[in-house]
């Protein structure tokens, strides 16, 4: 895949992610209407209610004629999606307590300079430089477009790496910016946060409002089964609940899968920008040795970082579980790929002409 295909693919994935997110809200809203507000298209529910009561000719009082839940959920979903797009970078930065780098401090000026150099190498406007107050070694990039982007590194990274290694890390982040990974990752981080919040909310409302729902369910199953059978309704309910409960997990796994593919490419772009894969190799080695978790970075932003901030050793494992749960490809594999690049640049293939 070349860079233009990569950019196009990232744009598509961003739109897809937003669509999935909206669909998720639609399902939650519809389910809420169906199970809590007893809304049913066609007024079938109203008939079921009147079968054992007196008010046969009364209005469909039990079922709401307007799907309030769906409408509200869709509006919230649209709002959150727009918010994730426009405020995502700021939200991400705020969640990590990042602050702007100042040119008065030696190391931070060096960082700002390195960021400018990498922007020159990529032929893009220089991103803003931010510092995360944390002793661990990590870095990430965020923003919605190259013209509006941010590169943030931890204080520990600045203190530990030398200029060339820092250049390698910044070049890796610049790769994310150039490939439009930042938009996708920022949007997915913001949406993931929203889904976690929403799922939590739905779960809680289920706990408090659960009685009325099970009551309605038992009644419809004991009464005349005009609703299409209690079993089907129950099945729908179960599917809905499972969806609500698993949503954060599924969304996180999606984000991880998205992120894993892109790390290799960003490493390669970083090597292309600096023409110096060795600096990035030694930076990754140092980052790998510092396995303590990056406390300032929470789980929602994990997939944006250069290395897993949770400090878990899952990144070192290979195989199915790691494929499913890791946000980053194993460090070993990344270093190996970079070493291959370094070897090729030092030992050019002979021309067989």
């Amino acid at each position, binding site marked *: 895949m070349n860079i233009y295909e990569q950019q196009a693919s990232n744009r598509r994935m961003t739109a897809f992610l937003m669509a999935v997110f909206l669909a998720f809200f639609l399902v939650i809203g519809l389910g809420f209407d169906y199970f809590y507000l007893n809304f049913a298209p066609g007024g079938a529910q109203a008939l079921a209610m009147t079968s054992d009561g007196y008010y046969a000719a009364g209005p469909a009082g039990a079922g709401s004629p307007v799907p309030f839940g769906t409408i509200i959920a869709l509006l919230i979903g649209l709002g959150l999606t727009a918010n994730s797009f426009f405020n995502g970078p700021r939200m991400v930065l705020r969640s990590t307590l990042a602050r702007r780098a100042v040119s008065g401090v030696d190391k931070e000026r060096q960082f700002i300079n390195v960021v400018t*150099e*990498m922007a020159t190498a990529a032929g893009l406007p220089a991103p803003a430089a931010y510092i995360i107050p944390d002793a661990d070694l990590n870095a990430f990039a965020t923003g919605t477009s190259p013209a509006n982007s941010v590169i943030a590194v931890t204080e520990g990274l600045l203190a530990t790496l030398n200029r060339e290694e820092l250049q390698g890390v910044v070049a890796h982040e610049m790769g994310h910016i150039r490939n439009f990974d930042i938009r996708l990752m920022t949007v997915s981080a913001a949406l993931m946060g929203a889904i976690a919040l929403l799922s939590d909310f739905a779960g809680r409302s289920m706990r408090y409002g659960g009685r009325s729902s099970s009551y309605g369910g038992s009644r419809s199953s004991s009464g005349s089964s005009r609703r299409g059978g209690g079993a089907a309704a129950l099945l729908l309910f179960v599917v809905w609940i499972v969806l609500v409960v698993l949503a954060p997990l599924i969304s996180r796994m999606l984000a991880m899968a998205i992120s894993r593919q892109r790390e290799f490419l960003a490493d390669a772009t970083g090597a292309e920008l600096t023409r110096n894969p060795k600096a990035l190799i030694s930076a990754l080695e140092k980052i790998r040795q510092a396995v303590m978790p990056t406390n300032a970075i929470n789980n929602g932003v994990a997939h944006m970082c250069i290395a897993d901030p949770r400090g878990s050793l899952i990144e070192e494992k290979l195989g199915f579980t790691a494929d499913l749960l890791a946000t980053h490809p194993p460090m070993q594999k990344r270093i190996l790929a970079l070493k291959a690049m370094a070897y090729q640049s030092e030992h050019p293939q002979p021309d067989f002409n």
Partner: protein
Amino acid sequence: MTILAIVLLVLGGWLVFMFNGLVKLRNQVANAFRQIDVQLKRRHDLIPNLVESVKGEMKFEKETLERVIQARAAAVSAGQGGNTGDILAKEGMLTQALGRLIALSENYPNLKANESVKVLMEELTHTENQIGFSRQFYNDVVTKFNTDQQVFPTNIFASLLGFSPSQLWELPADSPERQNPKVNLTV
């Protein structure tokens, strides 16, 4: 008849597409070239400050310092002359003289501890890197521009439409930049 019209339409569309793409690249090449200029200018502005602040400590390296000042003056006048080959040669001399100055300054612990010199050295490293990376970017863009002109079937039309391959920024064969700076470490 219809087929002919379609073929002509497709061909015309492709020509417009190709022409616009090449124009875009040509402007990018011009812009990338200006970026190198900006960085070279920055280096010229930086050197007097640097020389001024290391002069006191490095008075034994008078020759090196003078070489830097001369190289800078030559590079500035070459830049005003506007001859690309001349600029390349003179800027190469300046790079070499500066490299020698930086390497020698490592011998002076007082210099390394000096706050303002440290700041200047970082600025100098930054500027040298900026020059290197803007050249690298220029060469990348030029390579793309030239490749796009030379592939078939664009190569038939490119020169007819007034496009010509751009020159890569490379060092002349006898450039002093190709030699490693010799540093005498005996004090």
